[in-house]
């Protein structure tokens, strides 16, 4: 019973094995990819391990407090930002091993030529609740 965040990156992840951008796939290959993602979400929904998933737009804005009574300062987007998150999935699983297994499966989504992308996903554990009994 632990939650993990699976992060997919636009930029910043190590290079995938089958690293061909989607605009160079056939339409069928794109459909197969989308279907795979949908099936994966359905599957872990049925096993009671799905919490949430979202895709994020490429553009983003940096924002910070600029002092009392003043509107927040905004900046960016910065094209040179090394790390850019594309989306996430949150899972609730029994073990770290199970989280790895699911992440591996998600990374096998088909890309160019219907072959797995072998995309690098970042797996980040949630902080759990502090156990009552420790001593």
């Amino acid at each position: 019973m632990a939650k993990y965040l699976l992060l997919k990156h636009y930029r910043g992840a190590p290079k995938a094995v089958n690293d061909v951008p989607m605009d160079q796939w056939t339409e069928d290959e794109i459909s197969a990819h989308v279907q795979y993602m949908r099936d994966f979400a359905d599957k872990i929904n049925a096993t009671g391990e799905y919490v949430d998933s979202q895709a994020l737009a490429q553009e983003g804005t940096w924002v910070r407090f600029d002092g009392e009574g003043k509107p927040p300062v905004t900046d960016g987007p910065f094209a040179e930002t090394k790390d850019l998150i594309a989306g996430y999935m949150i899972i609730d699983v029994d073990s770290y091993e199970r989280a790895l297994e699911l992440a591996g499966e998600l990374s096998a989504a088909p890309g160019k030529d219907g072959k797995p992308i072998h995309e690098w996903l970042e797996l980040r554990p949630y902080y759990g609740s502090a156990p009552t009994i420790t001593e």
Partner: protein
Amino acid sequence: MDEALLRSLTPAVLGILVRRGADFAAAEDAVQDALVEAIRVWPADPPRDPKGWLVTAAWRKFIDATRAETARKRREDLIDAEPAPGPAQDSDDTLQLYFLCAHPSLTPSSAVALTLRAVGGLTTRQIAQAYLVPEATMAQRISRAKKTIGDVRFDQPGDVATVLRVLYLVFNEGYSGDVDLAAEAIRLTRQLAAAIGHPEVSGLLALMLLHHARRASRIAADGSLVALAVQDRRKWDTTLIAEGVEILQAALAKDQLGEFQAQAAIAALHADAPAAEETDWVQIVEWYDELAALTDSPVVRLNRAVAVGEADGARAGLKALAELDDSLPRYTAVAAYLHERDGDLRTAARLYVEAAEKASNLAEREYLTRQAARLNRKGPPHSGE
């Protein structure tokens, strides 16, 4: 309406349906529906016989569901007469339900969810909120769990140890959302103790009560963790402590020591000390030795190193720690603490920072970071901890 009373009737009602021939999965759904109806109807129209009301309502729900199912499948009505209620075997039924819901074929999270619903009478929504997952996800987890145990006979004897592990997990999750899981775990363990006289069930119940007694002092007003040594002991619930100690003593008298009794004995020794300095660490070390012999758990030996540090001095604690694997969770936190006790504040501060980075929960990370900040701010050792 007393919702806890209503929920305490769940296992008996479910047991009656199963004894009348309903299969477990369908009966469990029917009881859940009946509970939801009771919550709606009872406040305005309380029944004279709550249990009888629930049995009738649940049986009707079961028949309706079965009829609908049968009609769909075969377009004919198979069920007519309501069978006579089986003999009153409430406590046996309750016990069987615990075994079934903690069946070894279930994953821990499934066993926890099913136990809270079928034995605890919590709704899927409440369980989902407690574990911070969507209701649909929790519903799938429960329905899958019911499928997994679909072929297990209801009257098959089970292992009480698996049930205790499930209840321990529920208790240790503590408190999140609307449902007080710790209180729920205590209620379910009490109910189990009433159904079976087993020293380890009593041991676990005592352990829970003794820890629950300290709850008000464990968390400061700002939400931060308060270490046992500096807790305000006046806030400890002496009634719960007395009850826990009494249950533990009766269990120990049966002379069948188990890990929960040993853990409870340690908690009782802490509860017994009017001030942290008066803690009987020598006896605590002896109990950790017992516990290590029973479980062979590295976590136990880590805690033992802390106790040795208190009983025989920080050097002895560090020596005990050196024999353990430094990749254990909380190893670095223990090392930091023992180095501080040994007067090596520089090392302690560095290790506290490292331990904070490795913490598995936010409260612990903040606690460890505060310890590092405290040592970095002032040189001399702190007497209070």
